[in-house]
């Protein structure tokens, strides 16, 4: 086997291992929601405006719920290489040149994941607050 062929085989083996690792990650470690009826609250704080919404949902993740209620929440999204960000709520679009973004709190605590990974749990309160970094 010549050197180029050896390299090609090595690359294929590594890609196969990577796919298996990714598969294992998805099945063992990635956040998993529960498909069941839940009641959750979404709060939106933009400057002096505070709005609160209650939803009955079977969705697993916060992103799905916001997307489903896009009209009611006046929501808009932007896709980045690392995932989707909410850039508009109550029809207010963040001013990126002023470094504005929607900070997410889950039950008053800073969310440590993005909107696509935040799992919906019964009774939880999800707060979006306009902030600037």
């Amino acid at each position: 086997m010549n050197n180029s062929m050896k390299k090609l085989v090595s690359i294929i083996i590594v890609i196969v291992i990577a796919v298996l690792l990714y598969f294992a990650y998805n099945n063992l470690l990635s956040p998993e929601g529960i498909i069941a009826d839940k009641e959750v609250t979404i709060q939106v704080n933009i400057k002096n405006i505070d709005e609160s919404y209650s939803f009955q949902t079977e969705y697993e993740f916060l992103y799905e719920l916001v997307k489903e209620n896009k009209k009611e929440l006046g929501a808009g999204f932007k896709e980045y290489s690392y995932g989707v960000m909410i850039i508009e709520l109550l029809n207010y679009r963040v001013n990126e040149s002023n470094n504005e973004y929607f900070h997410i709190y889950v039950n008053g605590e800073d969310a440590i994941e993005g909107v696509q990974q935040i799992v919906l749990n019964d009774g939880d309160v999800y707060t979006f607050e306009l902030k600037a970094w």
Partner: protein
Amino acid sequence: MKIRDIALVGVLSATITAGKLALSILPNVEIVTILFIVYTIVFGIRKTLMVSIVFSTMEIFIYGFSTWFIAYYFIWPLLIFLTNAVKDKIKTEYGFAFIGGIFGLSFGLFFAIFESFFYGMFYGISYWIKGIPFDIVHGVSNFIIILILYKPLLNVLEKYYNRGLR
């Protein structure tokens, strides 16, 4: 340190910064790892460590200060020391591709350990777990890039460095 070396450190830092920016549209696909490996072998540990300091500082100027940039001042020198320690023992590109692959795979873990000093262990663990798919991409892309580009890059740099830059 000669003026020529100072200029060389500047140019090498610029190539790494530009290389990183050029590939920044692809998450966790970078040529920084291979460049640090090759630079360590060709230009030596001292100059490459200086390059890593300039590069890490440039990152702060470009992206703004954040806690994870502090880790840059440790993680790249770690790769440089590691490369310097094994460079005489590894004879083919496969060894360096393996090192680059493992380095990419553990990149998120290293940052998670660092971040947990600032934000707590729970944050560190979730940071690492959430980033595993990106670490996999990082490890695989490092392996492939080093396997393909290591020899041509090394040959070109050694040729020019031996010809007049030394």
